[in-house]
């Protein structure tokens, strides 16, 4: 039988058949042109239970309602998000895989300190609703009463004040900028490194180190046990009664924000599939601005603020540029 047909004939028949089926069945037609026609994977490059994981899972019901397809959360934790970010970049840039992560500072850190196989330009931010900030705090029992008191002590007796901090972090960059401004040699600081924000916060709450510089949001459960000294931000955050970096450094104060968390995609996806990108952007924007999602996420202490792609990309690239300036500090050379 098949001998009577050439390959070309077969192909023609198949394509005619497919075309006929398409015309005959509007459902398939819609599925072929309508993005998305299958579930969308959300890569979270952190383990379950962290902020990004909670953000992705809490937002999923609202985003999938706006999108018409379910979201499927995939946790790929490890190596300071490097494994998850790399995994994401290896996925097809067709919009069926998106990413929820602490893009700042982890993408610059992956690139500057871990030799990551991607650049900042490979990433496009849709929205970064959660912007953490560095908080300098001391134990509630310690004698350090204010940021000025801290600076005075460091000047008077170099090495006498121990500082808990994560190596290769936005917090370390902020500390260095502050010390440069104050004209204090970093050798006068006794730096104690912790491999996580939690351990560093516990250390300062227990008065094991004199002060700590860590992401401020994580300090909220420990509020009774610490005294906030300095917020690295333009305005006060989470009700901390502490000085702002602008009070110390003046209007020209420079600082890196802490974790900038939210939604991102491949840059090549935006170029190659502008129509699909628009659908995805609209869905996340609609959901983020809906009262239902705002209320639900607020209950879980998660952010929904809509900054949009332009502002979010600018913020990420700013962080990346400032961190690159301090690359020697981050790589420990």
């Amino acid at each position, binding site marked *: 039988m098949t001998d009577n047909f050439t390959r070309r004939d077969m192909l023609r028949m198949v394509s005619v058949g497919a075309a006929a089926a398409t015309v005959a069945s509007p459902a398939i037609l819609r599925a072929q042109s309508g993005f998305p026609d299958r579930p969308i994977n959300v890569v979270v490059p952190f383990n*379950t*239970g962290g902020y990004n994981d909670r953000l992705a899972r809490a937002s999923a019901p609202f985003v999938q309602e706006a999108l018409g397809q379910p979201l499927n959360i995939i*946790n*790929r*934790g*490890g*190596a*300071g998000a*490097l*494994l998850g970010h*790399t995994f994401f970049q290896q996925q097809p840039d067709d919009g069926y895989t998106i990413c929820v992560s602490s893009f700042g500072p982890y993408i610059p850190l992956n690139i500057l*300190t*871990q030799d990551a196989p991607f650049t900042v330009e490979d990433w496009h931010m849709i929205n970064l609703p959660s912007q953490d900030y560095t908080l300098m705090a001391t134990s509630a029992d310690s004698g350090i009463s204010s940021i000025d008191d801290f600076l005075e002590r460091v000047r008077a007796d170099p*090495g006498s004040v*121990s500082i808990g901090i*994560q*190596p*290769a972090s936005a917090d370390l960059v902020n500390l260095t900028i502050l010390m440069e401004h104050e004209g204090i040699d970093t050798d006068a600081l*006794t*730096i*104690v*490194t*912790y*491999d996580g924000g*939690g*351990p560093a916060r*516990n*250390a300062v*709450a*227990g*008065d*094991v*180190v004199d002060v700590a510089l860590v992401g401020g949001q994580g300090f909220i*459960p*420990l509020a*009774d*046990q610490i005294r906030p000294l300095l917020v690295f931000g333009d305005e006060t955050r989470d009700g901390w009664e502490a000085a702002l970096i602008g009070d110390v450094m003046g209007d020209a104060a420079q600082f890196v924000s802490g974790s900038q968390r939210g939604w991102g995609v491949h840059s090549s996806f935006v170029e190659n599939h502008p129509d699909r990108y628009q659908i995805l952007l609209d869905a996340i924007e609609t959901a983020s601005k809906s009262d239902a999602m705002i209320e639900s996420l607020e*209950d*879980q*202490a998660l952010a929904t603020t809509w900054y949009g792609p332009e502002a979010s990309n600018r913020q990420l690239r700013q962080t990346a540029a400032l961190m690159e300036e301090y690359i020697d500090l981050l790589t*420990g050379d």
Partner: protein
Amino acid sequence: MIDFENVQGAVSLLTSSAQAWIWLVPGLIIGLFFGSMPGISITMAMAIFLPMTLYMDFLPAIIFLTAIYTAAGFGGSVPAVLMNIPGTTSAVATTFDGYPMARSGRHNEALGTALAASVFGTLVSYLLLMFLIAPVSRVVLRLGPLEMFFVAVWGMLLIGSLAGRSMLRGLLAGTFGVLLGTVGFSSAGHIRGTMGVPWLFDGVPVIPAMMGLLAASQLIGLINTRYLIEDEASRKISFRKIVGGMRDAFRQRFIVVRGAIIGVLVGAIPGVGSSISNLLSYAETKRNAPDGDTFGTGNPKGVIAAESANSSSEGGAMATMLALGIPGGGATAILLAAFAMNNIVGGPSFIANQMDIVYAIIFANFAQALLLLIVGLGFVYIAGYVVRVPLRFLIPSVLVVATFGSYAIEGSAAGPITLVVFSVLGWAMMRYQYPVAATVVGLLLGRLLENELARVFQIGRQSIEGIFNYALTRPGALAILGLMLLSILVSAIAKERRRRRGIKLLDEQV
């Protein structure tokens, strides 16, 4: 220290509805089942069932999750005893004596002893928690790097007693383990020994490595054996013997209480927990036991020491979580997530204002421990049938389960690859008489040891004088060091006295 008004409130909370109780037994069964699967950690079992608690009230949800927590803690000892696989890091010391017991046909006794010691340990730890929740939580955060370094050194002493016949081989194996433990990012931000493999940035995957070293290597060595227990008559599953083993555990009250105290204290320290406490308790018990030389060859006291400490760590971790709102490990992080889903935040204000709920959780855990005794007995009875499976079926099945488990825990091929590499390594070490257990202890403690020492150096500004001055400001650390030295001294004197008495007896006989 106990507020009776709140105790009354707790009792009425627990007795007012049946909902708090119906989830208890299902929770225990889930915990036992998942805990005894190699590679499924306590955290994973709890994470899988966390979404279910969305449909429950707060107290039933917490009781359900802590039931999984309690039972999974014991579940890990079943494969540890029967197959030398510590399903979780907290059951490592259980394998040291539990598995030799099983191989010599005392699997019934070993499982019974492990169950009773776990239950007893959990009870003691929650009893301590009831009285000491506030003081323990105050101490925990004050532990600095020097204190933690001495705790790690205390654990390292165990390597000496795992060395077997050749101390040199033991030390070498232990050092190798410590070096393995330092692979990846150090706390100071340096990358070591990853050979450019990104999966090693967070260190060697501990559970797959441990399963490979202890279990797979052991199973490969058994390939020419037909059954786990050679003697056919010993392969019986005997209810009477299981209960006999349980009685053994209750007879060794002192070991259980010591294990429970170590468990609570170490378990309360964030980030340390039951994986260290079972090693410490085992080491202390072995050093102080008159028959310390028979440890490692199937002495039930070893099983009791390990199991009482790892199960009581739960109480310590709960103290830190309830009183400070800090998760000490994965399991308490899940519990905190369940708290958050009900808009409750753990911490000082929680225990100040809602002590009745805290007491209700503690009382429910007493009930859990007692019920575990019954449910666990049935579970252990069924699990014991593993010894009747011919090894030609058992070994491949266990290796397959371990491979799946190692994939599940890492979420990538890094898990199974680690398992295979360390299986071969473990087999080779056994072949040339290096104690693999010493390497496992080194691997578990290496990271803690190095990170804390690095911090001591940083605070002491890299000078001996600075470190010495810092040590003088930490009386707690000096007290731990003093206790450790005292413990070594006391056991050395006791050993010497026993030796003299032995000689004297010999003289009299002559």
